[in-house]
């Protein structure tokens, strides 16, 4: 360690992910529009170390992605994403089965949840946060496996 580069938290600093995370609890009931991220857009105050998304609905599936799902909604969300960056047409999304949780060991600064059918679903999002500022996190725009 040198004075020029003091040891500190950071995106590529291992210790930042090894210490226990700060809790993040949120949730909402989505819109009834298939694939819409209205009420399904979660912005974390710090970079995550782990995210758990739960679908509390007993009938309908959800959709989880790291980019806005519908092309028409892209510009309403993060400035990171622009036209052509949606997760829908690229298949870069996951099913969230009814009454189930999905735990993702992932670093990110935002996540998107949407209903898979034209029916609202109740979602809860729990995250373990690092102390890494979100400004340190790179953009997922046009990243293979996220939006392309």
């Amino acid at each position, binding site marked *: 360690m040198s004075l020029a580069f003091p040891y500190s938290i950071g995106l590529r600093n*291992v210790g*930042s*992910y090894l210490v226990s995370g700060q809790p993040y609890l949120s949730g909402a009931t989505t819109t009834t529009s298939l694939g819409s991220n209205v009420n399904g857009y979660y912005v974390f105050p710090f970079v995550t170390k782990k995210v758990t998304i739960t679908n509390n609905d007993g009938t309908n599936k959800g959709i989880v*992605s790291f980019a806005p799902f519908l092309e028409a909604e892209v510009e309403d969300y993060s400035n990171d994403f622009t036209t052509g960056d949606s997760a*829908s047409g690229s*298949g870069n999304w996951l099913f969230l089965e009814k009454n189930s949780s999905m735990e*993702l060991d992932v*670093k990110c600064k935002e996540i998107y949840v949407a209903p898979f059918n034209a029916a609202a679903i109740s979602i809860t999002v729990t995250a373990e946060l690092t102390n890494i500022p979100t400004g340190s996190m790179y953009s*997922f725009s046009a990243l293979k*496996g996220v939006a392309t």
Partner: protein
Amino acid sequence: MSLAKPYGVGIRNVGSYQVSGRPYITGSMVEGGANLENQLLNNHQLKISFPKVTKSITLWNQSATAAGVLNLTFAPTGAMTNFPTNGCYRVIAQNGSITMPIKCKELYLHGTGDPVAWKLYAALTNIPTGSMYTLTGSGISKA
């Protein structure tokens, strides 16, 4: 740490696997659950190449019928010795999934029976795939 060999990400660098991964998602379904060309037909095989070395993968079989069976391998079945009796594959049945905390730069999906719809999630390290050796031999391509 020396200036000649600066600390950085790498295939044998522990920290590269301890930091949380960045997401990589792909699959055969797009908006509304419609199937893309990535849907696996009977005895078809699909190679998935990752942009970075993985730290873990999760694979789901979302087939509409129980006859749609998904097989996971880390080498093309045609290059294997005595496939499938060598056992170097994992079967994921309808609505089933598998999670493996493994490093790799590519994997192969092989469908049998009815068309197979699938989803894949990977947590990626920042290790370039060029650093990853080719998986072959015992437990990969032969018993």
